[in-house]
């Protein structure tokens, strides 16, 4: 026991004197979680609060285009900046740049006329299908579409949202015009505004309910990002721990320890316990920041899962897996540069395939199986189960067992590597 205590003391002192290592272990993840959550929170809020600046060029002078613009404005996704009618695409580009916009919408000069003609055609067909007399002078319509210009930087997901909003506004404008035409044909008088509002405004609302196990708030950027980047931070201890193992190997300390009457597992256990505490502290610090700092900087506060024991068990399992991986890499790396370079790159790759950067469900089908190889996948699934679905220990047990199995594999590889290199 005294040997283990002396080893833990040694490992702790070495860690505390490695200022760069400490900054990487604690400082970088804290910065990362604040920055990424702020950015993603902004993206989460884009639909609700942060409107996308949009140049609007209306070449039409009719009523339908005004209705279309009003409908588009009501969606709340865009901050519309009207500009004078312009002709060339070059001018549009120029205006988009000047206004700092990401997209531009061009309404063609015959927009209202086309809406009107289409509505008239539909109403004629409707009256005919009811067996009522109708003015059958319907036109063949060749309409000029509404054009959407977008900055290539704009991600597809946003562009599709904007397209959906435009389609919705177009449908509303078309429906309104069709309704007016039908009403006028049947009643020989214009549709009253109140009736129009009643008819068009009777859309059913959508009730959104997160599928948590208990009653919880709607998930937000904080609930998504704090677990993700905590896991990332835990695995990034490889930069300190992996390097420390390489240093000990290269300095000959491992060899010297081999000549002493203490079994080598004491040294391995000491490193694991010391760095397990470090990973636990990382999780505690990042959670504290989520709970207490985030609300002060305009981010949603972190809500901890109700099953605290499950949270502790998952954090220990994730930490042990991260520590086992770091030691394993340290044993196989020949130099500190190799350990740091390979360690950092492999964590980024494992994070990517584990679903930390892009959600697993959005990955190609072939990646669904590959992602299970990444320990970060199991960590993330376990944390999401707790932070987003408010699961219990029973719900995360399969993930915890998978993490323990992966950690045991890393430990076995470590022992094999140490034996192969004649270090134990």
């Amino acid at each position, binding site marked *: 026991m005294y040997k283990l205590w002396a080893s833990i003391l040694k490992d702790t002192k070495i860690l505390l*004197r490695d200022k760069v290592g400490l900054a990487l272990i604690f400082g970088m993840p804290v910065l990362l979680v604040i920055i990424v959550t702020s950015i993603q929170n902004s993206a989460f809020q884009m639909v609700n609060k942060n409107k996308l600046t949009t140049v609007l060029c209306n070449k039409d002078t009719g009523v339908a285009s005004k209705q279309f613009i009003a409908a588009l404005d009501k969606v709340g996704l865009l901050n519309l900046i009207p500009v004078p009618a312009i002709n060339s695409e070059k001018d549009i580009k120029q205006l988009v740049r000047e206004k700092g916009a990401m997209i531009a919408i061009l309404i063609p000069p015959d927009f209202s006329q086309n809406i009107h003609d289409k509505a008239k055609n539909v109403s004629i067909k409707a009256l005919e299908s009811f067996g009522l007399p109708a003015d059958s002078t319907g036109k063949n319509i060749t309409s000029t579409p509404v054009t959407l210009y977008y900055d290539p930087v704009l991600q597809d997901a946003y562009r599709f949202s904007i397209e959906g909003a435009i389609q919705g506004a177009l449908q509303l404008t078309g429906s309104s015009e069709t309704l007016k035409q039908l009403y006028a044909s049947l009643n020989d008088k214009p549709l009253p505004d109140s009736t129009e509002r009643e008819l068009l405004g009777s859309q059913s609302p959508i009730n959104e309910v997160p599928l948590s196990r208990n009653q919880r708030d709607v998930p937000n950027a904080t609930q998504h990002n704090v677990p993700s980047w905590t896991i990332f931070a835990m695995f990034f201890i490889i930069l300190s721990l992996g390097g420390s193992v390489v240093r000990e190997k290269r300095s000959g300390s491992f060899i010297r320890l081999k*000549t002493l009457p203490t079994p080598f597992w004491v040294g391995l256990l000491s490193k694991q316990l010391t760095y397990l505490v470090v990973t636990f502290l990382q999780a505690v610090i990042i959670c504290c920041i989520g709970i207490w700092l985030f609300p002060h900087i305009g981010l949603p506060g972190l809500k901890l899962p109700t099953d605290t024991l499950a949270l502790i068990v998952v954090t220990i399992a994730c930490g042990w897996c991260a520590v086992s991986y770091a030691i394993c890499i340290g044993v196989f790396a020949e130099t500190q540069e190799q350990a740091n370079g390979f360690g950092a790159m492999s964590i980024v790759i494992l994070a990517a395939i584990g679903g930390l950067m892009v959600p697993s469900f959005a990955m190609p089908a072939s990646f669904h199986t590959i992602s299970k190889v990444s320990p970060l996948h199991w960590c993330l699934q376990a944390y999401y189960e707790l932070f987003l679905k408010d699961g219990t220990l029973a719900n995360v047990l399969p993930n915890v067992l998978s993490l323990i199995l992966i950690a045991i594999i890393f430990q076995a590889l470590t022992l094999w590597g140490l034996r192969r290199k004649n270090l134990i």
Partner: protein
Amino acid sequence: MVTVDAIDIQNVRFAYPRNEGEIYDHLNLNIKQGDRFGVFGPNGAGKTTLMNLMTGLLYPQEGSIKLLGHNTATRNKEINKLFGFVPQELSFYKELTPAENLHFFGAWAGLDGNTIMKRTRELLHILGLEDVRNKQVQTFSGGMKRRVNLAIGVIHNPKVLFLDEPTVGVDVQTRHAIISYLKELNNNGTTLVYTSHQLNEAEDLCNEMALIDEGKIVAKGSINELLEQHNTSSLENLFLKITGKSYRN
């Protein structure tokens, strides 16, 4: 009363895995308790391999190596309490102070807290490291680091002390201090097994020596005996006479 040898090597055959050829084939060597035994040879002769075999860092494919009567092949960790090892590399933690290093390695050598404190005080005093006991070793000069390296090897008062180039890269004062301390240890009963390229230092320290070349012991005995046998006046001349003047890799 029959006393066991400090080291008893019998018919040892050793080859590194994945390397062609054997390093040692039927090697026999005895080192008596209380000896100051030097192992010399040109580069690549197998001195470090022999040291690693004697300390249990490597195990022979055939034959036996006994340390104070205990076969190292049993891999019994209790044997490791009997000897100390001072490797050529500065094998300690540069981020720690000398006292912290001694505390850690002392614990691993099986000492309790009080004994470690007592031995740390003694060793830091003897090796002139008292004033810097709380400074990180990475700030030390080469000579000071060598003294820390030595102190760690002797913290548990070993019966046999293996030293691989213990004075490499140090100034005359440090070399003198280290050699004096090693002689003092030997006077107190510690067997020294020592390798070095410093032949004048070996003449001063060793009473017995073996010269090895290409995995074989080409000369063994007391320095005076060997000088007389080969009719030479210095260890350097003896060395060149036996191992030749051609370059070694």
